[in-house]
């Protein structure tokens, strides 16, 4: 039987993500898939991690997957430099010398529950994405924060393997970061919790996950529910607020659930039904709108109703 052929479009910006998800999904029912990258000129970080996560899930499910179009792909060097091909398990000779990858080429990183340090990977991806930016700069710390929280989520809630990719676009002053995993998806993470009924569909599950102080871990039956929990349900909601405050964007896909918010305004759903097994979270931050990270954080926490006691005496110099 001939494998199903998926041609990745020439350019996939973040706004064209639903189209990519639809394309990949058309291959779902077929036992074998060929991914054709011949036309590829540009893939946004979200597109890169979506393809990687989908590929790995198909492999895990026993689907035959292969890659074609490398010879005619104009941007093959770019895809090699960011380790896209390596993560697909495709090794072809490199006709260039690898230099310090920082800046233009930010290698994709991966982790799963069994391996990978969230803090190290988050710091590495931030350093490579913003090589000329001081580590005390506000945008640097904000990107590092978002990477840390999103990677943590993938590591501890998805049960799968996650890919992270980021890029700084100096002309538009935007930083993009995307984390996609091939795990259980957000809806399933709320199974057997006290708010399972509110997560009845992938769409409602995403909205539940975005609420401050909602964590599926805290909602599970536990004889001592407040003691020693690893999670407070802050990561996703705070990252969302940061995206809003920086006039950025937050997009989430999980199963057929979809959430897309630009400058805090929810966008209309794409007309075609989309599907992404696992979870994709993609964040855009606008560097020009990030004034003071510490102040932004304190504002966000107060908006979500956290922390207003005086703890001054506990701090010594």
């Amino acid at each position, binding site marked *: 039987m001939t494998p199903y052929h998926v041609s990745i479009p020439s350019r996939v910006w973040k706004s064209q993500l639903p189209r990519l998800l639809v394309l990949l999904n058309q291959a779902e029912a077929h036992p074998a898939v060929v991914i054709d990258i011949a036309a590829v000129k540009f893939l946004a970080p979200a597109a890169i991690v979506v393809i990687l996560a989908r590929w790995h899930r198909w492999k895990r499910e026993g689907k035959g997957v292969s890659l074609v179009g490398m010879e005619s792909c104009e941007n093959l060097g770019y895809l090699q430099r960011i380790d896209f091909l390596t993560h697909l398990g495709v090794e072809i000779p490199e006709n260039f010398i690898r230099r310090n990858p920082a800046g233009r080429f930010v290698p994709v990183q991966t982790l799963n529950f069994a391996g990978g*340090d969230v803090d190290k990977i988050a710091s590495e991806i931030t350093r490579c994405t913003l090589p000329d930016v001081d580590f005390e700069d506000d945008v640097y710390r904000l990107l590092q924060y978002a990477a840390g929280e999103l*990677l943590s989520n993938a590591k501890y809630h998805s049960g799968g393997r996650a890919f992270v990719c980021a890029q700084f676009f100096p002309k538009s002053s935007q930083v993009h970061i995307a984390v996609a995993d091939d795990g259980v998806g957000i809806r399933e993470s709320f199974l057997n919790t006290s708010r399972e009924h509110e997560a009845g569909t992938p769409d409602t599950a995403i909205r539940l996950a975005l609420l401050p102080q909602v964590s599926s871990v805290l909602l599970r039956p536990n004889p001592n529910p407040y003691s020693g929990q690893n999670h407070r349900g802050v*990561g996703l909601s705070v990252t969302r607020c940061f995206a809003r405050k920086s006039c950025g964007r937050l997009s989430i896909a999980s199963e057929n659930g979809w959430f897309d918010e630009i400058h805090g305004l929810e966008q209309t759903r794409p007309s075609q039904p989309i599907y992404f097994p696992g979870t994709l979270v993609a964040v855009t931050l606008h560097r020009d709108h990030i004034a003071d990270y510490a102040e932004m*954080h304190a504002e966000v926490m107060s908006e979500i109703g956290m922390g207003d006691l005086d703890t001054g005496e506990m*701090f010594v*110099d």
Partner: protein
Amino acid sequence: MKLEFQMVSEFGEFLADGHVGNQFRSLRIECIWDRVESVVFDFTGVTNLTDSFVHACFGNMAEEHGEEFSQKVRFKGCSPLVRSFISIAVSEGLKKHREHHAGH
């Protein structure tokens, strides 16, 4: 017993993983809490952290021990950013402690 932890040597400059924070709390502090007179967390060199980490580590600790936490624990070498993150997490933990113990 008086304890002091250099956070940068324990975790590096970026404290991100809530599981790691919670594990540190239970394995290094909670198990000997009753014997500890005071504990200082020195954040010199720590440049950034996530809410997942601070809440799992210090929010939980404050929630568990309430007033006793405020008496025993001190934070040192904090940048304004680190101080703000910790202060919010601790404050939240203390509030929860009061809620659990209200009327007891």
